[in-house]
């Protein structure tokens, strides 16, 4: 299967994630969209890893495994970020009793 299809899919997922971050009002939904972006990137990395394995055979196994290790890094970062982000959302909820990001405009002017 040509690698283009994976790239298109990945880019589509990424764009959906970006639009979601920009337009949604609920903070938790925004988080989900961020996760979506991260996973799109992961997908891309895995696709390229497989591509290197197939096209170049056993000549460049390093690049393939580089990509797969990098995926783990991304997952670790995603996990850490989610934990911190969710705790922030909890604190915001406790202060303002809502998770609507449009109410967080105290830095205005």
């Amino acid at each position, binding site marked *: 299967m040509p690698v283009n299809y994976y790239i298109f899919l990945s880019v589509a997922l990424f764009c959906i994630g*970006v639009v979601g971050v*920009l337009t949604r009002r609920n903070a938790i939904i925004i988080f989900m969209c961020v996760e979506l972006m991260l996973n799109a990137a992961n997908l891309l990395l895995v696709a390229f890893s497989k591509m290197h394995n197939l096209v170049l055979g056993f000549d460049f196994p390093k690049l393939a495994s580089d990509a797969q290790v990098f995926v783990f890094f991304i997952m670790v970062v995603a996990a850490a970020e989610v934990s911190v982000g969710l705790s922030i959302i909890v604190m915001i909820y406790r202060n303002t009793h809502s998770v609507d990001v449009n109410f967080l405009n*105290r830095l*205005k002017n």
Partner: protein
Amino acid sequence: MNNVLQIVWMIPFLPLIGFLINGLGRQRLSKSVSGIIGSGVILGSFILSIWVFLQVKNGNTYVAHYYDFINTSSLKIGFDFQVDQLSSLFLLIITGVGFLIHVYSTSYMQEEASKDFAKYFSYLNLFVFSMLLLVMGGNYVIMFIGWEGVGLCSYLLIGFWFKNNNYNDAAKKAFIMNRIGDLGFLLAVFWLLSKLGTTDYHSAFALIADPQKNPLTLFDITGITLLLFLGATGKSAQIPLYTWLPDAMAGPTPVSALIHAATMVTAGIYMIARSNILFTMAPVTQTAVAVVGLATTILAATIALKQNDIKKVLAYSTVSQLGYMFVGLGVGAYTGAVFHVMTHAFFKALLFLGAGSVIHAMGGEQDIRNMGGLKKYMSITHITFLLGCLAIAGMPPFSGFFSKDEILAEAFKQNPLFWGIGVAGALMTAFYMFRLYAMTFLGKFRGKPDQEHHLHESPAAITIPLIILAVLAVVGGLIGIPEVFMHGGHQLETFLEPVFANTNEYVKENGGVKHLTHSTEYILMAVSVGGALIALVYAWNKFNKYEKTGAEETGIGKILANKWYVDEIYDSIIGKPLQSIAAFFNSIIERKAIDGLVNGVGKAVNYGSRQIRLLQSGQVGNYVLLMVVGMLVLFIIQLFL
């Protein structure tokens, strides 16, 4: 060889110390201490000047180099003092007359508060310091330092009673008119420097006098000398820059005596006498100098005929006598001009100090219409003033006769018309001086009764300088007895000969010196002395029975009393146009253009910041959107670059 004249630096240094002590300690020193310090340093300088004079008389001239004032690869100007016949003579005049005036001031200024008294003496000492720098400088730059310094001190001293706005205006007028002249002086020095590469007197004049090595063209020399003369008109109150001197009478009388009679105003004559070779080589300038001098003599003399303030008459008399000195310089009578400087210092200082004594006795009154008959009450002042008047009128054997007659004889050699105008000026001088004398000391007292009770002779500190100056005014002329009376009698000419040697040689090579026959000289002398005597007697008789009428002047008298309206003419030709140009620049260009520009920048920044502030909406979504947009822009840019 270690020349003994190396200590001449102490001569200006002592007044500088006096200035510092009196100036910095004015809050603490008592009047007697500051008076003693102020006068004592001048006495010290005088004693050193006598010693220097005796050394120079034995032929021991010297150029003392102290340190490199300006030291670049192409320009070297040293801080030099030139001690020769001309400067040592001026040293004696400045420190001698200066010392007498300092002593006089200790009594005259007694009514001041002690810190103002000390301030006065510090200014006077600073003035003497600057004047000494001027005459002792070995090059034009050091002379200019002194030149500016005396202008500054003139301003400080004229405006001494600074709480009076009119006096401040007079001080500003003096300083500004001086500065206009200084521009001419500076341009001349720059021109000389660019053509010769040096401003030192001995090297510059030796270079110019040598026909093989002279790099200056006639145009250069004429230009330089005309600009130098412009500087001299400012400092020595000639047409067109003389109107500051009558207004400068706003200062205390000893200041008028020292600065505006005996010393500062003679700086222009000193400068031209020092540059004599330059002026001799520029006949155009010499004619200009003589013509301006004559015009000033006559103009000032006519104005003095109708002045009623005792100091104003003396001020215009000073302008007129300075005109005589310039006439002397213009016809090549350098020795005569310097001689007249010396005798004028004696009798003019005497007259001013006598006027001060009279003003003090009259309790501040300066209008001679309110005086009269003072000879009964102030005999010493009366006798000394009379001797001063006889000297200035040119009566033999007083000093004024010898110096004025020398200038007139030289003027006759050049052009009999010059002599004629000079004699007219001398007649007017005799007339207005004796008008002044008669209205002040003869006749009946015309003042108020309480003034009459106050009349008394002044204390010793005032009368002793008057007596000393009177003696000098009487016998001071005997060092310059002309050839017709006594062969070899002109000791001053013999003394000053080395200073004017270059000039004399140049004149001999280019046309020679004219000689008058003895009979011509006797006739010239008889005419001028006789005419002056007639004017004197006429004024004596006319004014010794002067009655005060409240009548206003009419016709010619009114024009003369209003000084030919010169101040008003200057104001309308120069003052008002400048002010309207300044007003235009202020309202249009300053307010609208420049302020508009600067304020406009501020307004633009304000507007811009208000718009940009709208970006900070506080919405997180907005911020993320901007982040994404930015990333996209960077991404696209890196694709194309």
